[in-house]
């Protein structure tokens, strides 16, 4: 009796692992998937050759603004907070259901810090979001990143109420 329950349990577990690979639902990090993780379990993304396919940015895209909510970040951080993960799942769900569409992730920063450092920090945020969505099973070459640093704020005040709105990743779609 015990034996067969264990056996069934193992079969169910194996089935879950296999189907999660196919449908891309939330899964715990496992080795060998080409991604790396920080100490918080956030996906960092591939180390070399970011899986972009062609290494150049295309010029001939049709870009449309998206209806997705921006993902917000803490100061000087590119970590994806728990509160933001549902937004990324929505994006991944949409992409799964619309195979001909690609995603551009834009990274943004608040106005503190040098403009050039913020361009790089914004890219790190965009890449963190991209890596997370890849971890949800979306193909790497469907997602591109661009950083605007502090150059395109959403809010124009000079206090945390505005800064918090500007530390973000936002989304547009392309065909």
């Amino acid at each position: 009796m015990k034996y067969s329950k264990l056996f069934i349990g193992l079969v169910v577990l194996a089935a879950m692992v296999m189907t999660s690979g196919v449908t891309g639902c939330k899964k715990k990090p496992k080795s060998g998937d080409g991604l790396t993780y920080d100490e918080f379990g956030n996906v960092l993304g591939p180390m070399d050759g970011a899986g972009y396919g062609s290494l150049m940015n295309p010029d001939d895209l049709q870009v449309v603004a998206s209806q997705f909510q921006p993902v917000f970040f803490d100061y000087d951080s590119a970590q994806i907070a728990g509160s933001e993960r549902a937004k990324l799942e929505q994006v991944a769900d949409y992409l799964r259901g619309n195979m001909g569409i690609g995603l551009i992730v834009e990274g943004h920063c608040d106005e503190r810090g040098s403009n050039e450092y913020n361009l790089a920090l914004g890219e790190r945020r965009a890449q963190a979001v991209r890596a997370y969505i890849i971890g949800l099973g979306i193909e790497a070459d469907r997602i591109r990143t661009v950083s605007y640093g502090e150059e395109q704020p959403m809010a124009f005040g000079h206090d945390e109420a505005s800064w918090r709105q500007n530390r973000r990743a936002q989304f547009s779609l392309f065909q």
Partner: protein
Amino acid sequence: MRSLLTLLFALLASSSLASDIVIRKGTGKTSVDLSGMTFSADTAARDFFTTLQTSLARSGWLEQGRPGASEYRVSGPVQFDGATIRAQLTVAQVAPPRVVLTRTYNGSAAEVRRRAFEAADDIVEEITGRRGFASARLLLVGRQGQAKELYISDSDGRGMYPLTNDKKVIAAPRWGHDGRNIFYTANLTAFQGIYQIDLSTRKRFRIANYSGSNISGGVSPDGRYMAIILSKDGNPELYVMRLSDRQLTRITRTPRAVESSPSWSPDGRQIVYVSDAAGTPHLYIVSREGGTPRQLTTRGRQNVSPDWGPQGEIVYSSLIGGKFQVCTINPQSGMIRQLTSDYADHEDPSWAPNGRHIAVARTEAYRSRVYLIDTMGDPPILLVDTQGDWFAPKWSR
């Protein structure tokens, strides 16, 4: 009293413009008397004189002196005949009397200020042996409406003209090594690219268009390479790109850190840049071939925007007490000097080619303007006074 009045009257009545009669004792500056210059009575000749006068004062090494009480004297006619400016200048040491420079500066009406800048640099160099910066130009990001565009101005902040009119996000402007090209980062398409503008043809080329970041950085002193930031290999890293064929050499490998703002040493062998590998942004130095970087700054919350000057000192912005201040660091000794301390943010400092003055974007009450700062104690000067906000000044060298 009578003779003083007579002198004053004589000065005012002469065809030369009255010079400022200001003597500063003990300034360490060499005094130069300009009262021997004469002018035709027109705007062009007056522009030549005032541009020369301002540039000599701004050099830092000279001050205008009284007739009979100066170490050097500049004399000669400045004439404009309606089409051409012609300044025949003689610069003489007063005691012992010795002519150190005679030169004629000719140009069209449009070249009046350029000739005056050249004359100022020649005079500074003849008298002090030091390089002037009057002939250098400033590359700037300016925002006069909604959008930022690139501009170039003369060394006195005037003569400003725009290079772009795209209303797109731009950043990180840099000069090519010979003043004939500029490079910058722009989002002209849906993505970020590095662009080059040839100043003589005004043609623009895209030179980097990788996936992710393409951010311009310093051009090597020999003009053949640009240090850039790319994220195509996973995360923003420092690369060196050979400009002739765009061949890349990867310099940093920091999967958990971002790099930015690379600047070359004057001998072209090393690069100083910003990395947050230690948690917050600090300055690092690495060989242009790659290898293990050396952390240069260790204190302070943010040390950003380095510019490696011709005399070997690195100027940068440091977050001190909540505001960005201008500091210099000697890469050999590690000695740090803080040059500003007022309640304003000072960003993107750039060495003038004389290795003494620095242009910086100073933001106070959310208004950004470019100031000229002296490392030898002269007070700061508001350099770019044009309407709008001004950022990222870069001196040509």
